[in-house]
């Protein structure tokens, strides 16, 4: 009797959230899988047809899409270590007994609360071409005029790094706070024990701090990976995927297909690929993390 009641309570408790996820996330995703094999176009009066793998074949034939995949990988491979490292450095700096620690912490976190659509607009001005751009002006100033002004957002080599810089600025504060919390959660006795053993600063860092921070770091890297794959707004506002697809991303291509070109089926196919991709990458990361642990 007692047991039965407990079962229904559990289901009841989980029901509202599960229903929400089912109706508003799982169902549309299943719909997307279905649509990916059709010819659906936004509002088309033509009959819906099954077209097999055509949308997928076309995608892998399209240089813009393959470039988007490559860009997402590049972005992830650069951003995950870079952003995690920078966040760790900031967290370590702020984990010391310093005056104004709270102010610095708030300051580094502040960009996180800026909506991406605003962030991107400000950075357009920072990356503006010619000496009137803030970054160009700054680089010229610190190089005593040797810097040649660049058109960052239209240079095939600089555009993606420019977006990376924007994303780091916007996102690193969040990772920093998480790592800081992780650092503060390390029991003080471990440090005391290490210092009794005569361990130096580096030794303490490698043998106490890092192992203790391991789970936090894994979490941070997982989050950064997922966010890196979702890259969209900065691209949409700052570069429109250009120059020559140098900054296009999988998500940007999906939105372009569905809304600009009204090719819903193509957008759905991209969604499916995206999901599989992130699933594989995160599963791989978790697998590696578990291996190391063992």
């Amino acid at each position: 009797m007692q047991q039965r009641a407990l079962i229904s309570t559990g289901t009841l408790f989980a029901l509202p959230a599960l229903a929400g996820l089912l109706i508003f996330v799982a169902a549309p995703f299943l719909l997307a899988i279905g649509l990916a094999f059709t010819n659906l176009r936004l509002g088309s009066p033509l009959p819906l047809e099954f077209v097999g793998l055509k949308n997928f074949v076309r995608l892998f034939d399209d240089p813009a899409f393959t470039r988007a995949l490559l860009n997402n990988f590049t972005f992830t491979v650069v951003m995950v270590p870079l952003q995690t490292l920078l966040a760790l450095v900031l967290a370590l700096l702020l984990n010391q007994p310093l005056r104004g620690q709270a102010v610095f912490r708030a300051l580094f976190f502040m960009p996180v609360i800026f909506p991406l659509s605003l962030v991107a607009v400000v950075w357009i001005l920072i990356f503006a071409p010619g000496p009137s751009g803030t970054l160009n002006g700054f680089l010229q100033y610190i190089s005593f005029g040797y810097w040649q002004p660049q058109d960052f957002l239209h240079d095939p080599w600089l555009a993606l790094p420019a977006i990376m810089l924007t994303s780091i600025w916007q996102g690193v504060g969040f990772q920093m706070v998480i790592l800081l919390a992780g650092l503060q959660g390390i029991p003080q006795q471990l440090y005391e024990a290490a210092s009794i053993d005569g361990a130096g600063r580096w030794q303490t860092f490698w043998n106490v701090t890092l192992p203790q921070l391991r789970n936090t770091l894994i979490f941070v890297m997982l989050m950064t990976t997922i966010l890196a794959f979702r890259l969209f707004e900065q691209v949409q506002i700052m570069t429109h995927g250009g120059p020559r697809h140098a900054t296009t991303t999988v998500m940007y291509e999906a939105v372009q297909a569905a809304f600009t070109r009204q090719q819903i089926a193509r957008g759905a196919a991209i969604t499916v690929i995206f999901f599989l991709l992130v699933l594989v990458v995160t599963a791989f990361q978790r697998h590696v993390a578990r291996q190391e642990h063992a």
Partner: protein
Amino acid sequence: MIYLYTKLRSLISYIVLFSLAGLFISPMLLMLIGSVKPEARVLSEAGSLLAFVPGDWNLQNYRDVFARVDFARYLFNSLLITSLIVLLGLLVNSMAAYAFARLQWRGRRLLFALVLAILILPLEAIAVPLFYQVSMWGWRDTYIVQILPFIANAFSIFLFYTFFLSLPRELEDAARIDGAGTSRIFFTIIIPNSKPAFATVAILTFLTQWGVFLWPLMVTSSESVRPLPLAISTFYTLPPLQWGDIFAFSVMMVLPVLLVFWFFQRWFIRGVASTGIKG
């Protein structure tokens, strides 16, 4: 000697911190100062140190914003939508997380795996089919369409879940012996003991929802239900582009969040330290 060493170390730390802080703060300053500058000078001075000098400052850009969009209406919509998502989300997600973390029921493991899989699906990925779905239901251009789909959130469930796992079981056991039912335990024992987790999830949800752009752009058409981030598009699509106005608008849009965050900062940091976020 050791004293000197420590001094030097903290000096270096300060130098690094200050220069990083300078780099971090300058885009924000650019925005703030640009918002009180005459339009013509925003761009012409962006490349020099003058960008950070207000010059003959005035509030014209702010007046322009109020003249160009119904700021109060957008603000109200944003506040309404965001706070409903946050509050309803806190309730249903924490309940689901509790069910996953503590209660025994059929399908628990399987459904939790599903929640974890959903974690990686961004809105952009399902926006198109979801758009189709809600359009067919006739939900276009309402508050509901901006609220209901975002209440249940896999990430929030995950955060609550890890937090609840870390709560000592004794709390509940004592209450159960006193004859309290699950609901009572949850509302009188679990929630009061999980303030940091609630604060963290609330802030994270608030931050995400405050900036949503794509979805309301797709599903709303009238000013009466549109949130703040859409108002900014008024400034880019209608030439001439007014950087000063954009900045003034941005400052006003960020300010409420800044205040809320400043106020809850301590809780938030504690929450991060105690929810699953830190692993």
